[in-house]
């Protein structure tokens, strides 16, 4: 799973040469073999590395503050979202819904890596939500819909219908 996310990120970043990954351990933590150094381990670590490689530092945040926020959500993604139980999801969605109340993106007003990987990580949770539940977490739904429509982000994941207040489904326009 994590490997597909990384390859989607590579495509989004427009990296020409796809990297080779392997995984380690039961949690299948991604590993990037690095030609000129020891391998890099961990989803957030590798993702940050790829962004630097693509010379798109803004995706990691444009200030010390937003950089810390981005890393915080990357960590949240791998510690809280991954492997969360059914009971956890309610609390997670509730918190995120509150957090996103006054935000367009995870790190405020700018699209960052935090959006990409929170989106990938929350996708399996959103898939299982009923329409009513999606409406209960309207801010999450709005953010989610926004991110999945950002050009080049979605890649390996199917688009989900999260908002009902549309006259036309996405197929018709």
């Amino acid at each position, binding site marked *: 799973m994590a490997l597909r996310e990384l390859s989607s990120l590579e495509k989004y970043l427009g990296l020409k040469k796809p990297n*080779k990954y*392997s995984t*380690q*351990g*039961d*949690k299948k*933590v991604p590993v990037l*073999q690095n*030609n000129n150094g020891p391998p*890099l*381990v*961990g*989803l*957030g*670590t590798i993702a*940050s*590395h790829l962004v*630097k490689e693509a010379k798109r530092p803004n995706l990691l945040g444009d200030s*010390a*503050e937003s*950089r*810390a*926020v981005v*890393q*915080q959500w*990357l*960590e*949240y993604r*791998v*510690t809280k979202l991954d*492997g969360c139980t059914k009971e956890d999801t309610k*609390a997670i969605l*509730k*918190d995120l819904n*509150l*957090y996103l*109340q006054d935000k367009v993106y995870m790190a*405020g007003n700018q699209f960052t890596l935090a959006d990409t990987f929170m989106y990938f990580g929350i996708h399996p949770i959103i898939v299982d939500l009923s329409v009513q539940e999606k409406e209960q977490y309207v801010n999450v739904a709005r953010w989610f819909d926004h991110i999945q429509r950002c050009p080049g982000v979605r890649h390996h994941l199917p688009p989900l219908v999260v908002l009902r207040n549309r006259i036309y489904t996405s197929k018709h326009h």
Partner: protein
Amino acid sequence: MKLFVSEGNPHCLKVLAAVEVSGVQCDVQYVNHEERVVPFLSRPALPALLLPSGLHLFSSNAICRYLFEVSGKDSSELCNQWLEWEATDLQPALLQALHLAVVQGKGSEVSKVLQGPLNYLEQSLSKGNTPYLTGEAVSVADVVLWAALYPVLSDASLALGERASIKAWFDRGAVMHSCQSAAQKVLQGKGLQGMKSYMQRQPAPSSSQCRDSQPCNGNPAESEESERAVSAEEMETAALTWNKGLNTCSMATSRQHPILPQEGKRNILLTSALPYVNNVPHLGNIIGCVLSTDVFSRYGRLRGWNMLFVCGTDEYGTATENKAREEGLTPQQICDKYHVIHSDIYKWFQIDFDFFGRTTTEKHTEIAQNIFWRNHKHGYLVEDTVEQLRCEKCQRFLADRFVEGICPHCSYPEARGDQCDKCGKLINAVELGEPQCKVCKETPSIRSSKHLFLDLPKLEGQLEQWLDKSTSTGDWTANAKQITRSWLRDGLKPRSITRDLRWGTPVPHPDFKEKVFYVWFDAPIGYLSITANYTDQWEKWWKNPQQVELYNFMAKDNVPFHSVMFPCSLLGAQDNYTLVNHLIATEYLNYEDTKFSKSRGVGVFGDMAKDTGIPSDVWRFYLLYVRPEGQDSAFSWADMALKNNSELLNNLGNFINRAGMFVTKFFEGCVPAMELQQEDKRLLALVGWELQQYIQLLDKVKIRDSLRRILNISRHGNQYIQLNEPWKKIKGGDTERQRAGTVTGVSVNIACLLSVMLLPYMPTVSQTIRDQFNAPQSCVDTMLQGTGTFVCSLSAGHRIGTVSPLFQKLEVDQIEALKKTFGGQQSDDEPPKKKTAQSAGSPPPAAGPAAAAEVVAGIGADPEKAKQLTQAVAEQGEKVRELKAQKAQKAAITAEVAKLLDLKKQLALAEGKGSDPAPQKGKKK
């Protein structure tokens, strides 16, 4: 900027230390544990940092990172990696450990919970060779890890064990005033107890977090299972079994050839995919086929099953003809030469075949032609004309590997006529783009030729019926079932069984005189003919499905031939053939995350393994440990050294050696009397349970998973010794001395059980252990019977032999040298010019048919690089001398010396001396 912390909260220790180290001004406010500071989080989260923008940071690592960044220290990628590891791997373990120690009062169990992450940290620190995690200076990673580990590392009562590099690193942090004072603030000098009120409010960590959800894919040591609860009943049963004593009648009698099926026994016929004769097998081939089969065959014999293990070299086909032309020999000479090479390699790996034959025999021709005629008679062969490539210059049809071109599926430029090496898809030679004759490089023309086909669609019904039964009653690996299903789903087509070649089994039909059988039809018949060369009564195995169970071992690329094509040939022959009951297929083993490649000299090939100086048993252990069971895996030198040092040396070898040494040192070499107490019975139950799991898994051919059970047992054993400290008790009063005796006696018996469980994996080590203990042969026959019986096989008074260490440490420099010698990295190290010249595949004029080892050395040699390196060595040498003259810090000097040694090694390699296996040790200028 405002920082909210609470007393006794270990996460707050991190941020307070970071505030002190970074020197960032911020307003620290102590609040209650339950205070909700971060407005959007429903659960209280501390520490929290209120940023000037009004945003809250609630992750302690993100807060530390931010504090460091505003003080002008950006975090490196390595730093990121440590922080991520801290959050995902260390924290869950720490949380569990602190809960055990502080809330449940089980400080003794902390060591087990933490050993995984601590070992990893220890390895990284000792490998990195720098004073701090990410280099020469303190980074945010050091502060975060130091503070996270402070509560457990500073508490001596937890007995976490000695880890030299961690200790040195931790003490370096302790020197920093800032870390100490942060610890004082949070824990108030109360140590672990300072966290009690905080920990009590935390949800108890569920052990399932650490438990491995998919047992078949895990890396054995990295997924520690948490302690199993043992019931009183289990303990009593275990104690009863213990007292049963050894079987007197021997179940596993010595083998008498020829082995034939016996009434009333489980009769198992084992085959390993026949290795193709013209290549030296690499580690991937070995683990996929012969080694896996060997483990199962040794295990089965211990279980008392009647087994026959046959294998041999597959010798016909175009590849052999090509190779013969390359080496200027006849195909038969090539086969004779390589058959011996194969045979020697497997002997070195201790593959215990009952018979290792070959396919170029008279019996083979006889049986293959018989199966052909029977299929012909029953109308399963059809004739058809096929378009084929023919080279006018060479005057022949270009089958399979005589033609190369562009793959029609993936556009790989060097696809062979039958299959593409890149995408693995089968190819019809006429579909190749820009085809070339491999011999003369001319473009061949398309001509038609008449061939015979096996009518697979006509056999499909019978095949499906048989498959349903076989896959539902037998043990087929998931990949085997899946590959087979996809073949059937796509529908079967008639498949050509004849070829326009010389080197093969002749087609006996008069209309097809000049042709031979296609290898896919011919090679699996080798199993039958090899058995026939072993015994005239081969049909008792091969035409006896009622009495015989057939296991086929192979790598996954071989599945369709064994599950679809070969069964169809046998079904079509209608001769009551024994068909496969259990199809065991491995995934692929990669080499340091690339593919093994003979032509590029990348990887370890069977004949070179022994040149490494690493014992055959250790090779077997590591290959089985990373056996690609359920998913691809990779061979890595560093990992091999790690597993040798951590699992074999420190875990398994350490336990067995200690148990034996205690008997020798404290009890004059005689096993002491044992009075089992509850604790001992509990251990017996735990060990018995692991033994049962081992048997259940191996019965299902989960070779890699059951190896883990062995290592679990020795881990239990080490813990038991550590906890009971017989070396102290032996100096005490009578009760204490007796206790030391029981612990020693139980331990040495566990070691004896381990020797039996190890037998399929490491036959030499297994025997050595029993020799050292003078263990009775009957223990081998007893322990693996039924669901597993762990009996006391070395009873009180038994005299053991001389005990000595079983394993040797693999040193870093030794392993680095091997890594360089066997490719992997070296192609990356080379200047790009050289690299392209190599990959173009044009061998240098002098090379010719060099032996494998020479090829490797040749690739290593590079005069241009040698010149650069000579210069670098001289410069680095100067630097070291300067440092020494200035009496610089020892650590700094050591680091520079290490660099120097590394450069020298590279130089040796570039000068073509790379294969020199003796790494240089000791002081060097």
